[in-house]
């Protein structure tokens, strides 16, 4: 029997706003525990929530990016439960009126494009961070109240690969919209997976298993591939899939049981009485959308239109710092492809060596543009431009200055000068000319080499090659 998987994803994204969702305490990561707090974050009696405008703006931007309907009235509800990491004994969330509904995300899988439906996104607040030790548990309230946006997909994902691509797509949106740093390893993007399987062609749902603790995008795919196989194996052996929560054990490469699920918790939702509904003006929504930084997909399309390969475009976009640098440097050159090559080659090389990231790339973008121009207009070979760039990194001087210091000479593209050399080469190497005419392409290389020798390396080899070709053609 063949099965298909039914996968739904819940993604929690921690926003990088300046202050928390409902309090004025700053949003930080890695600070001394329990230092970034307002009384509200500890739920001191009498404290009240005030809605973070930037978080609402982020919600609008994300909803728009996912093609969702945006609720013009922002409302919040209480989700009531007792837990050690939940200071108020309830979480303020948007149960009844999520800020965005009915959207989708396009993913490009190995089997073609697919559009994954998204049920809703809603704004809420994070809980305190727990640190468990054998004899005690510690609570860090710095995280309590950090704005979250939860993105709930429809159960339309079918494979581990699709799940991975979906998460990557969401991460790219929140990253490029400036909503979050999207770091799974730091918990600013958290993924819960629900997966069940059913025989192909059927409409019902199998028993759902939840997988938690997925700390990298790669592990989402691995965990799902494993889990789908596991469930299929159980069914084929005539056993049943139990409703349970599992986690992914990275070392063993498999999912392991955390706990069996009993009846769902009753969160006793009701509208938050301390926040009056906020009517979003059309202007506010429009402005939020219009001022949203350029998103991943738009950049990708633009880069490809500039002549970059899909692969190069995606590699650059892998690193937001590089993409932003690329965009800045673009305004200093007409040769995007060369620029991309410099960034992916010399740029990355240098950063690796120096242990730096693209966010702190040491050369101003105009210098990178200058290096490209040296190559594409100045007659320097790529090797020479790279050499100059290396000195720029080393001494913090512009590539032009580096060229001078290194005494590099541009190659000559002057027609008159090159024409003389071409004439000489052709007359001295009649046999090779004949060989080329007979279809031996290699002969051209030989002729160009002779010309370079004659010019003592000064000739621009590309131009030289072109002219030899032209000349032979004319003689014919």
């Amino acid at each position, binding site marked *: 029997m063949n099965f298909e998987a039914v996968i739904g994803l819940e993604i929690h994204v921690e926003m990088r706003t300046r202050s928390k969702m409902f309090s004025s305490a700053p949003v930080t990561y890695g600070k001394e525990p329990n230092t970034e707090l307002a009384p509200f974050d500890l739920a001191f*009696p009498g404290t009240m929530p005030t809605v973070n405008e930037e978080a609402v703006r982020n919600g609008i931007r994300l909803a728009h990016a996912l093609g969702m309907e945006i609720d013009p009235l922002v409302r919040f509800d209480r989700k009531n439960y007792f837990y050690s990491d939940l200071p*108020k004994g309830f979480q303020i969330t948007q149960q009844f009126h999520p800020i965005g509904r009915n959207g989708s995300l396009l993913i490009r899988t190995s089997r073609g494009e697919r559009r994954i439906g998204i049920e809703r996104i809603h704004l809420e607040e994070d809980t305190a961070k727990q640190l468990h030790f054998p004899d005690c548990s510690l609570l860090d309230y710095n995280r309590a109240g950090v704005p979250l946006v939860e993105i709930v997909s429809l159960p339309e994902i079918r494979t581990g690969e699709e799940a991975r691509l979906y998460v990557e797509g969401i991460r790219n949106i929140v990253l490029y919209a400036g909503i979050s740093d999207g770091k799974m390893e730091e918990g600013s993007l958290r993924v819960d997976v629900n997966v069940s399987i059913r025989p192909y062609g059927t409409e019902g749902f199998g028993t759902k298993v939840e997988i938690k603790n997925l700390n990298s995008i790669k592990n989402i795919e691995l965990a799902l591939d494993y889990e789908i196989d596991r469930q299929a194996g159980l069914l084929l052996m005539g056993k049943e899939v139990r409703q349970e929560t599992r986690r992914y054990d990275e070392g063993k490469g498999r999912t392991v049981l955390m706990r069996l699920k009993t009846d769902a918790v009753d969160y006793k939702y009701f509208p938050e009485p*301390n926040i009056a509904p906020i009517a979003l003006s059309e202007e506010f929504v429009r402005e939020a959308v219009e001022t949203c930084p350029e998103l991943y997909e738009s950049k990708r399309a633009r880069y490809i239109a500039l002549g970059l390969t899909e692969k190069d475009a995606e590699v650059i976009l892998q690193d937001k710092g590089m993409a932003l640098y690329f965009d800045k440097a673009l305004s200093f050159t007409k040769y995007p492809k060369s620029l991309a090559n410099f960034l992916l080659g010399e740029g990355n090389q240098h950063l690796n060596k120096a242990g730096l990231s693209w966010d702190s790339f040491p050369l101003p973008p105009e210098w990178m543009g200058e290096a490209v121009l040296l190559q594409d207009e100045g007659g320097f070979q790529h090797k020479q431009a790279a050499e100059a760039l290396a000195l720029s990194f080393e001494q913090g001087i512009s590539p032009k200055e580096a060229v001078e210091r290194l005494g590099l000479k541009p190659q000559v593209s002057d027609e008159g000068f090159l024409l003389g050399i071409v004439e000489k080469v052709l007359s001295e190497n009649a046999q090779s000319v004949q060989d080329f005419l007979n279809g031996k392409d290699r002969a051209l290389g030989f002729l160009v080499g002779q010309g370079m020798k004659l010019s003592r390396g000064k000739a621009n080899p590309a131009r030289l090659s072109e002219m030899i070709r032209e000349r032979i053609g004319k003689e014919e």
Partner: protein
Amino acid sequence: MGYLDLGIRGLHEAYLRGETTPREVAEEAIRRAKENQDNALEATCYEEALSFASSLGECERDNLLWGVPYFAKDNFSTKGVETTASSNILKGYVPVFDAEVIRRLKERGAVLLGKTTLDELAMGGTGTSGHLGKTYNPWDESHHRMVGGSSCGSAALVAAGAVPFALGSDTGDSVRKPAGYAGLVGIKPTWGRISRFGLFPFAPSLDAVGYFTRSVDDAAILLEALAGRDEKDATSSDKSVDSYAKYQDISLEGMKVAVLDDLMGTIPERKIAKDAGKLLSRLEERGVEVRHVRFGEEMLRSIYITYFVISCAEATSNDANLDGIKFGPYPGGSTYEEVMLRARTQGFGKLIKRRFVIGSYSLMRENQEELFLRAQRNRAKIVARIGEILTECDFFLTPASPGAAPLFDEQGDRLSDAYLIADNHLALGNFAGLPSITLPLSFEEGLPLGVNLTGRAFDERRLFRMSALVEEETGLRNLSVRERKEGRL
């Protein structure tokens, strides 16, 4: 007679004349508070109060609250002063911030002397469920009668003449009911008029900051100081603050007062109903149009249960922060569940637990439709009915309670209309978020009776105008037990 008996305006004039100082007045207030035997106090901050009073310098002309001593109900967050809301679960809790009203009063130079008792976490109407036990009605020296709650301590201390005003909070009638029992003016302004930031929440959709004074004038003066938008309370209104204390120039002409006949009809023989009737006749003589309307008996009967379901549901959520982990006594335990269970088992009184169970029950998925949501729909229906009445009329007038302050062991018939309606109708003002004020009406065997006026949203100025007329007609102003003792009453 001392300066404290003059009311806020009289005291201010004495300060301006240089007859006395905030420190002297605070000392006198402290002396009177210490003398009081009604079990009205939680924490006090007398030393801080005296040094603050001494630091006030020159009297600020027109800042009527300058140097005025007051008490606050112990459910207002007060920086550095223990605040327990009369519950053991908050024993030892010293807030790190001031409630907005406390901050404003401090800024104006009013002198906080301490915190007053309440029904535990403001839940209750008897003033008996706080962790310090019963608070007594100062008008009954034998200590057999309640002053009412939940703002019992504040009512007792103002009625005792210790301070010109005290802060309370009002979710169902927690200021306006005790005001009636204590011969005081007690007001709950429009929902959103005064910031609730720092008020320990009971049921935020109903909660209002309120206060007790001994005159309409003082009540109006205070509203001017306390009202206004506060960024820390997202539900506070940005409507401009009227000059409430200048209500005298408003014409009474054309003002209409509604009487709810079906409400009055539940207690026809009682003195309070008769006196309210007499008052209405006198208002008519003064040119006020009195209209008799029927609210709808069934709806009136549903007030109590509607209030109970909504308030308990909200309360069970609001008080979920009291879990022993972050503040209050830490009971220990090997799991977080154990810590919470112990803290809440030991920390809450029996009545509170009952309310939490009821609130939680009515919010449960399988009950929510039948209880919580049904109560919300009924609330909307009641609010709509109030809206109809207040479109025709400017105010409605009711007795503040079925009678004078009850004896502690008095068991009313909880299913009678006298109880279901006349004892619980003040929640109408909370349902609709309307300004509502209780004023002294008369006396019955030495105990005060109160009358209540409820007006349109944000129409406090006209409410004060009408209240001043009532005050004029009853002649009951600046009442306190001290006035009676000293023979001025």
